[in-house]
C-alpha cells in the first residue's frame, strides 16, 4: 500500500486488531497500546514488498484464525500473508534481522549506453574501498561500504529501464542505505543520477549457514 506513513500503518493495524477482537497484551501507562513491534519502520518514500511484525497475545491463539480474522479487518492493500507462532522468549525481530533486499528501478541516464552502464557498475565494486559519509546525531561518520554489500544484480529491461537488486546489511549492528550506495555510484560514474523509486523487498536473517526469512528460523 502506497502513501501511508509508518505511523499510519501502525494505527491501521492497531485498529484492525481491535475490530478483530484479538486478545492483545497492552502496554502499561497513560496510553495503553497493544504490543506490536515491526522489524523496522519503512523509510518515507520507500515502498515495501513485505514487512514483519510481532504481536504479543494474552494467550495462545490458533495462528490460522489470527490470520483470517485480522485479514478480514485490514484495509485493502494490507494483508497478513504468512504467520508463525513463537514462544514468548523468541528474540525481538529488530535484534535478529540483519539483511535487507531492495529493488530499484530507473532509466539509463541520458546519453549513457547500456554496455557502458554495466561496465561502470562492475568497475565500481573493483575499488579497494568506497567511502561513505553519513551525518549522524554524533557527527559525521565515514565508513567503507563494500563489506555491507551482500548481493548486487543489474538487469536491463525494456526501454532502457534498469533494475537493480541489491542486498545490504541492515539493523543495529551496521547498515547501509540503498540511497547511500546509489549516490556513491553516481559520484563514481560522474553521471547526473536521480534518486529513483526504491522498494524494500524483504528483511532477512543472514547466518553462516545461509539466508533465511524470519519465519524460517528457530532460536
Amino acid at each position: 500500500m502506497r502513501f501511508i506513513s509508518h505511523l499510519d500503518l501502525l494505527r491501521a493495524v492497531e485498529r484492525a486488531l481491535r475490530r478483530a477482537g484479538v486478545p492483545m497484551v497492552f502496554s502499561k501507562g497513560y496510553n495503553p497500546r497493544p504490543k506490536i513491534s515491526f522489524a523496522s519502520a519503512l523509510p518515507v518514500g520507500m515502498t515495501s514488498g513485505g514487512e514483519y511484525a510481532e504481536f504479543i497475545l494474552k494467550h495462545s491463539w490458533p495462528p490460522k484464525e489470527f490470520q483470517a480474522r485480522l485479514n478480514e479487518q485490514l484495509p485493502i492493500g494490507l494483508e497478513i500473508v504468512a504467520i508463525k507462532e513463537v514462544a514468548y522468549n523468541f528474540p525481538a525481530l529488530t535484534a535478529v534481522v540483519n539483511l535487507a533486499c531492495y529493488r530499484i528501478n530507473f532509466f539509463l541516464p541520458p546519453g549513457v549506453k547500456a554496455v557502458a552502464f554495466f561496465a561502470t557498475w562492475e568497475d565500481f565494486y573493483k575499488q579497494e574501498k568506497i567511502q561513505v559519509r553519513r551525518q549522524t546525531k554524533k557527527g559525521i561518520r565515514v565508513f567503507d561500504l563494500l563489506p555491507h554489500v551482500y548481493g548486487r544484480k543489474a538487469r536491463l529491461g525494456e526501454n532502457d529501464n534498469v533494475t537493480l537488486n541489491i542486498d545490504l546489511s541492515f539493523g543495529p549492528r551496521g547498515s547501509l542505505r540503498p540511497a547511500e550506495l546509489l549516490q556513491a555510484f553516481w559520484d563514481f560514474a560522474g553521471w547526473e543520477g536521480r534518486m529513483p523509486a526504491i522498494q524494500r523487498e524483504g528483511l532477512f536473517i543472514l547466518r553462516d549457514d545461509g539466508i533465511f526469512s524470519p519465519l524460517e528460523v528457530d532460536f
Partner: protein
Amino acid sequence: MKPELEKILPQVSKPTRYLGTEWNAIKKDHRQVDVSFALAFPDVYEVGMSHLGSKILYHIINKRQDAVAERVFAPWPDMEAKLREISLPLFGLETGTHLADFDMIGFSLQYELTYTNILNMLALGNIPLYQSERGLGDPFVIAGGPCAFNAEPLTDFLDLVVLGEGEEVIGELLTLLKEWKQEGSGNRREFLCSAAQIPGVYVPSLYRIDYGDDGIIVNVEPVVGPIPPKVEKRIVADLDKAEFPTSPIVPYMGIVHDRALLELFRGCARGCRFCQAGMIYRPVRERSLGRILSQAEELLLSTGYPELSLTSLSSSDYTWIKELIGQLKEDYGETGLRVSLPSLRVDSFSVNLARETEGLRRSSLTLAPEAGSQRLRNVINKNISEEDIAEAVNSAVASGWNAFKLYFMIGLPTEVDEDIVEIARVAEQVAKTRAARGARKVRRVSISIANFVPKPHTPFQWEPQVGEGELRRRQEVIRRGVRDKRIIINTHDPDSSLLEGLFSRGDRRLGRLLVAAWRLGCRFDGWREHFNKKKWKDAFALTGIDPAFYTRRRRHFAEILPWDHTSPGVDKDFLQREYQRALAGKTTPDCSFDSCSQCGVCPALELPICPRGGEEDTPKTVG
C-alpha cells in the same frame, strides 16, 4: 486510482487525504443509483473528517439503495496547485467522480472563514460559480450547518439552504430530486420551487431584498406564489429515532478528533448570550442511556478506535452522565478504552467526571469562564461564580492536575478595562492554587483569549463589534496584568475576527466581495498561515464595500436584519428581552433545570415545553 492522481500524490503533503480508501468508506457505482450527492466540506480533510454532522449525512444517504454520497474536502494549497497544473477537476474521494458530475453538492457551513474555499472548490470542480448561471446538467449547490442561519453572503452561489438538522430533510430533498430527474423537464426553477415547500428549505433566489438609501434593508419578500415569508428550521424531535453512524470512516492519518464520537444530546439551554449554538440548536433533546450504550458497542466494534468521545454542547449536563461513564468503564476498561469529555462545566462535579474518565492521562484540564469579572459573566449569562472556578480548580489540583487551560473572551458588550484585568487576576488565582496537604502545585496555566464576534440569532445580534485596534489594546491590558511566569497567554488575530464578524452578520451584497477576495487568491482564511490581510483590503477597495457598516454599527431593534426571514425558532422578542436583561446585569436560568424562559422554540416546533430526557426518566441531580 486514477493514473493522474497516482502521479501527483507523491508530490503533495499528506497524500492520504486524497486516497478515499479508508476503512468503512463506501464505494458505489454511480450507474446503479438515481441520485448522487457530494458532501463538500470547505476545509482541509483533518478538520472535515472530524465533523459529526457530515458523518451522519454520509451514513443516511448511502443507506439508501437509490443514492450515493461521496466526500470532498478543500484541497490543501499544494494539492490545488497540482490539480491546476495537470487540469484535473476536483473529485469525490470514493470513486474519483468529478464534482460537476454529481446531482447535488452540499457544503457544510461551520465557520465563516471557509467561504472563499467554497468558491475555490466550485471553480476547481468546473461548476458555474453563480447559481443564476447554472443550467441543464449542472449540479445543485446547497448548504447547511450553523452558518446557514445567515447564509446571505453566500446566496449568489447557493441554489438552496437547509436550516437546522438535516437527517430528515436530506431524504425528502433526494426523493424530490430523483422525481424531478425522472420527469426530465430539466427546469431548475421548477425543482427549486417544489423544494421550497419542504419545511426547513430556504431558496434564496425566491426572495427579493430591498435596501433603503442608508443601505439598510427595508423589505424582504418572496417573489413567487406560495413561498413561506419566513423559513423555520427543522429538528429531530426524538434522538433515539434518529439515524446515527455506527460505522464511520476511519482515516489513516491523524485527524483533529481522531476517536469514535457519541452524541449524548442536542441543544443546550444554559442560555449564554454570546453563544449562537446555544440559541440555534434548542431545545435540549437527550438520547437514552440504553441507546447510547448500544451505539458505543457498535461504534467500537466497527472502527477499532481506542478512544470514545462523549460529545455535546455541555456533556456533563447529560442526565445519566455518571451512569454512562460507569458502564463504559465496566464494559471496556480492560481493552484500554479511553473516554473523553470535550466540554466541561466549571464545577467540581465535572472535574470529578473528568477524573473518572481520563485519570491523569490528559496533561491539562480545560475550563471556560469566558469572562473575568462577575459583572461581565452576568451580562453574558455565564452562570458561574468565582467560587465555582476556585472549587473546580481546587478539586482538580487535589486530584493531581497541574496544568490548566482557561478560555476567555474580550470585546464583550459593556466590557471595560476593569473586567479585563480580572482575567489576569483569575489566571493568577488559578496558578496560585495549592493542594491542602502536600506540595502539589500548578505548573502551567494557559489562557486563551478569543475575540467576541456578535452572531445572528443571539441576544447580541444588534451589538457593534469592537474594532481591531481596540482589541489589540485590550490584549495588551491582559499581558500587562499577568506577572506569573507560569501563565501563557494565547490571543486571536483581531483582523480575522472582524472578517468573521463581517460574514457572520453580512447580507447578499457581500457576494461580490467574496468573489473579489477569492480572485485575488484568498483561501483558508481561518488558517493563520494563509490569512492575507492585504488581499482582503484590496478586495474591499475593489468592491467599495465598507466592513464597518456590518461590524461596527449598532443596529436598531426595529431594523430588518438580513437573517430575519430564516428562523431557528427562537423569538426575536426573546432575544431583545435577553439583550435588555444583559445590560441590566440580570441572569436567566437554564430552562432544563428551572422554569421556561419563553424563548419560543418549543411552541414554534410544536413540541411540549422542554422535552428533556429519554425513556428512563430519573430525577435530575445537579452536582
